[in-house]
Each structure stands twice: as structure tokens, then as C-alpha cells.
């Protein structure tokens, strides 16, 4: 393996700016790595060799500058990339090439990054394992027989396998953080509205949040800082300055957390977590105390209803959002033989184009929104969302951040949770409350359990994204980063 693929994004940016390495060399080294390992990892759905080398050549020619000039990045396939296939890992969008770039893709280009390709995911970001990708699962670089998390398992696996130093994910219920946890990488969900959703194929519009994946906290902050910020094309984008996440990560890396109060959520204690996950979490708490942090137990009584509320709200929004896949404007059309009606063609197209988890959620969402059930399900879930938000707000009156394991269990073997969909949903038990509240949260590696990575989650108040980077970087300075076995 080339040394260039082992370097951090910050190191690569510096080496390229200092002419110690060319952007083309860096891009080629990562493309070679993809050629060498991706047949086994399957992190990518599409590799854009020509586009990557052309973008790198433009950096070398001095035509493109920016804070991450020449640094390769992989982008989750749910994000529109002009002229480059974008499928959301669904058959219904097979072969679609968007006529425009998502805002965050424009910002990645403006920052000088080199896009390597599009990463695998659960279809329409619905899942926790990539097993619901219509194009086959991604394999965890730590153990190829286990899941890489989901929905953004491709992005997390790509960076864990040194195929890219940076990747973009999207987090609706944990789809950046849980893959980060189970692949031993860093994944951050910014404050909702802190990163633009324009050009993101919508799953659950009130929850979807794009964010960074990286192998260390500073790199995640660097990527966060170039994609975040107000976008007039997204009406839920927050018109506020981006917190200084890079400065906060660097400050945290000095290992001083004096005066910082960490809230441990009482209701999460031992709630279905594996013993190895809990012991890695508690060892991390001890490490943070040594850095000066204070641990405070807090109660968030409604967090236990977050998972049920999420599985009413997200499918309801999805059932509406996915109505656009009707075989008319883009993607698949099935059964148009000249005799069938529009409605028949639509039903046949959606039946052929959507996978089982997507169908389940569309049906579930249609049920929760239907008259007679709306108040009991969707309406009640929205009220529970208010109570969960209040739990966060009252906790943040006492502590600076909340901490928990990112996910209750380490990477599980393929097939072990697909027969009972609800067992899969439990992977997001600790990540979902944040999405309902809207605040930022990050997963940072904190150790191993039976040889597999465990993630530590830091949740911060809305718009205090810098705070979570500081704590995560401090933990990283104490426990180090993780390196998977050689592939």
C-alpha cells in the first residue's frame, strides 16, 4: 500500500500545497488502492477515475485552490453529482445521471477536493448494515464477514480501508455515526440545517443531515467546515455562521477538558448494550475524567420512546418523499406496453424498482398518516418529539455535552438481523434521539470489543457543533485512533 493512502487529509493538503506530492499522484494512489481492495470491500458503487484525475490535474495546474486542494473524497450515492451516476443504491434510479450538483458537492469542488466516486449504502438510506443496498452489501474492513454499519456503510468502509481519506455521509437516524462506530472511524452529524440538503435525495426531510466521515477528528472537522453553512436553496438551512469546528478539534487535541461537564444518560445504562461495548465506554469515561472532565448523571425519561417515534416519523416522511419515483421524470419505467394505464405502470415500476425495506417503510408511513390512525401514530410521535427535545434542553442546562456508546453492539455478521426488521432498528437506539432533537453528535473510536471497534458518541446542543469536536478530539488524544488488520 502506498504511504499516500495512509496519510490524513490534513497531511495530504499540506503535502500537496507544499508541492511534496502532486494531486494526481495522490488521486492515483487512492484509485490504485480501490483497484486492489474494493472487489473485497465493495465500498463503491461507482468510481469516477477520469473525473478524479482531471480534478487532480486542475489542482496541480494551479487552477483550483482551496483548503483541501487535491485531497480525495468519496461521496455517498444519495447525493446528486452532475453527470456522475447517482442511484441511492436503488434499482429505481439505476443509470441516472443528475443534471446538477448538490450544494455540498459544489462546496467540495470549491474547496479543491477530488471526488473519487460514489459509495454504497442501504437503499434510500434505510438500514443499518448496507444489506438493503440493491447492488450488494459492503463488507467491513475489520472482518469481511460482518456489516460495515448503515446506511452509510460504504463511506465508512472506504475510509477504514484507506480507499479515501474523507467521505461524505448522511445521517437521518444514525447513518453516519453507527457506520463510523463499527468501522473504527469518525463520523459526525452536524446540527440539522447546518449543512445543506439541496441535492440530497430526500428520505425524511425533517431529519436528514449530511456530514463528514474521516479517520480522525481533525479531518472530520476540516471536511465539516468546507461543506457547512447557509444555503438559500435549502429553506431549512440555518442562516448563522458555522461554529469554529476545526479550532475546537485542535483545542481538544491538547487533551485538556478542565471544567467540561459530560452528561451520562441514565436511561441508556445497560440498555441492551453488549458487555464489551459498555466496558470500552466506561474506560473512555475514566480517560476523560483524567483530562479534567466531570461526569454528571442525567435523566432523559423520554429517550426510551425515541425509537418508536422515529419509526413513525421517518417512514411517514419517506412515504411522501418517495412518491416522486413514479416512472415519469427520471429512473425506471416498467410495463409501459401501450395498453396499461399510468397508474398501472406506476405501480409496476415501483414494485420492480424498490427493495423490501423501502416498501415496508412506504407502507408503514402510509398507514401512520392515514385518517383514523394519524392522531394515534404520527401526531403522537410528533408530540413525543417535543418531549425528547425538552429532555435534551433540560440536560444541557446542567451539562455541556451528553455522552453514550454510539451503538449497542459491534459489527454483526451478515444476515443476523435481516429476518426481523425491528432487530435491525435497534442498532440506532442511541443515535436516534439526537436526530429528533436536531442537535449535532459525533462518533469517535474508543477501543475494541472482541477485536471489533466500539464507538463513543458525544451529543451537543443545537449550533454547538464545536463543543462535540473538542470532546471527541480530547478522547482521541487519550485513546488513539484504530487501524484495521491488513486487507
Amino acid at each position, binding site marked *: 500500500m502506498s504511504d499516500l493512502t495512509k496519510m490524513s487529509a490534513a497531511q495530504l493538503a499540506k503535502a500537496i500545497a507544499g508541492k511534496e506530492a502532486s494531486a494526481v499522484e495522490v488521486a492515483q494512489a487512492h484509485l490504485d488502492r480501490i483497484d486492489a481492495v474494493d472487489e473485497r470491500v465493495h465500498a463503491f458503487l461507482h468510481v469516477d477515475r477520469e473525473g478524479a484525475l482531471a480534478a487532480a490535474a486542475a489542482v496541480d495546474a494551479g487552477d483550483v485552490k482551496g483548503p483541501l486542494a487535491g485531497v480525495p473524497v468519496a461521496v455517498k450515492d444519495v447525493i446528486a453529482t452532475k453527470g456522475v451516476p447517482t442511484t441511492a443504491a436503488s434499482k429505481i434510479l439505476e443509470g*441516472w*445521471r443528475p*443534471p*446538477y450538483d448538490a450544494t455540498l458537492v459544489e462546496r467540495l469542488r470549491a474547496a479543491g477536493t477530488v471526488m473519487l466516486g460514489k459509495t454504497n449504502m442501504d437503499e434510500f438510506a434505510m438500514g443499518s448494515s448496507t444489506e438493503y443496498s440493491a447492488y450488494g452489501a459492503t463488507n467491513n474492513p475489520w472482518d469481511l464477514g460482518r456489516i460495515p454499519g448503515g446506511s452509510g456503510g460504504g463511506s465508512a468502509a472506504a475510509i477504514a480501508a484507506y480507499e479515501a481519506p474523507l467521505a461524505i455521509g448522511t445521517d437521518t437516524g444514525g447513518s453516519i455515526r453507527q457506520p463510523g462506530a463499527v468501522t473504527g472511524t469518525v463520523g459526525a452529524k452536524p446540527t*440539522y*440545517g447546518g449543512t445543506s440538503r439541496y441535492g440530497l435525495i430526500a428520505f425524511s426531510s*425533517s431529519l436528514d443531515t449530511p456530514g463528514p466521515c474521516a479517520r480522525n477528528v481533525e479531518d472530520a472537522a476540516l471536511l465539516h467546515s468546507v461543506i457547512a453553512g447557509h444555503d*438559500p436553496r435549502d*429553506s*431549512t438551512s*440555518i442562516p448563522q455562521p458555522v461554529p469554529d469546528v476545526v479550532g475546537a478539534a485542535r483545542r481538544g487535541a491538547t487533551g485538556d477538558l478542565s471544567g467540561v461537564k459530560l452528561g451520562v444518560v441514565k436511561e441508556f445504562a445497560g440498555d441492551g448494550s453488549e458487555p464489551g461495548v459498555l466496558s470500552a465506554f466506561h474506560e473512555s469515561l475514566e480517560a476523560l475524567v483524567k483530562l479534567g472532565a466531570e461526569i454528571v448523571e442525567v435523566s432523559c425519561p423520554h429517550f426510551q*420512546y425515541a*425509537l*418508536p417515534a422515529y*419509526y*413513525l416519523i421517518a417512514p411517514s416522511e419517506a*412515504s411522501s418523499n418517495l412518491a416522486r419515483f*413514479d416512472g*415519469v*421524470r*427520471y*429512473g*425506471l*419505467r416498467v410495463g*409501459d406496453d401501450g395498453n396499461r*394505464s*399510468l*397508474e*398501472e*405502470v*406506476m*405501480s409496476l415500476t*415501483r*414494485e420492480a424498482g424498490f427493495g*423490501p425495506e423501502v*416498501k*415496508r417503510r*412506504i*407502507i*408503514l408511513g*402510509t*398507514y401512520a398518516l*392515514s385518517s383514523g390512525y394519524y392522531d394515534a*401514530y404520527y*401526531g*403522537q*410521535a*410528533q*408530540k*413525543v*418529539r*417535543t*418531549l425528547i*427535545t425538552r429532555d435534551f434542553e433540560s440536560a444541557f442546562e446542567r451539562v455541556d455535552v451528553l455522552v453514550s456508546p454510539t451503538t449497542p453492539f459491534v459489527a454483526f455478521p451478515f444476515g443476523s438481523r435481516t429476518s*426481523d*426488521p*425491528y432487530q435491525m*432498528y435497534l442498532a440506532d437506539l442511541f443515535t436516534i434521539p439526537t436526530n*429528533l432533537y*436536531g442537535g449535532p453528535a459525533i462518533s469517535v473510536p474508543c477501543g475494541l470489543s472482541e477485536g471489533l471497534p466500539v464507538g463513543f458518541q458525544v451529543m451537543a446542543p443545537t449550533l454547538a457543533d464545536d463543543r462535540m469536536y473538542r470532546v471527541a478530539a480530547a478522547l482521541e488524544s487519550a485513546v488513539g485512533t484504530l487501524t484495521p488488520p491488513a486487507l
Partner: protein
Amino acid sequence: MAAISREEVAHLARLSRLAVTEEELDRFAGQLDVILQSVARVGEVAADNIPPTSHSVPLTNVYRDDVPVPCLTQDEALSGAPDAFEGRFRVPRILEEEA
């Protein structure tokens, strides 16, 4: 008692424009029943006087300046269409044949 019947799932699939198979109906009915029984726990929360949250960002009436900006061209907008005709999306018939 089941929270959702096979017939209800078939009805919801029709509303969702999904031409599901008989085998899928059997499978989904069982799975959705398990999921619904789990998510129904939201009903345990006393929330009569609690306002609903549809969104975590309390923004209302977001407008941009009334300045024209470029948008997709007609060709770009039609570039992904399964079928197009004279600059328009072409769709299967929407009305019954006349008698």
C-alpha cells in the same frame, strides 16, 4: 390480536402504488405487525397538552430575494426521463378508452 391485517396491507400497498405480490403480502403483514406493536409504545406517553414538533428548526416564511437565477434547461430537465416527446414528459394514458 394482530395490529394490522393482510387485507389492510393490501389496501395500503394500493394507496402507495406498489403492485406487491401475494408472497410479499404474507411476509409484510407479519413484519409490519411486529413493527407496529413496537412503535405503538408512543401511545403510552401522556402528551395531551404537548404541542407537536414537525421540525427542529423554527424557521417560518423563508424567502429569497426576488432575483431571477438560472435553472435547468428543458433538455437538462428531460435528460433522465424514461420517455419524452416534443420537450415534454411522455406518460402512459391517464383516461379510459372511449366506448
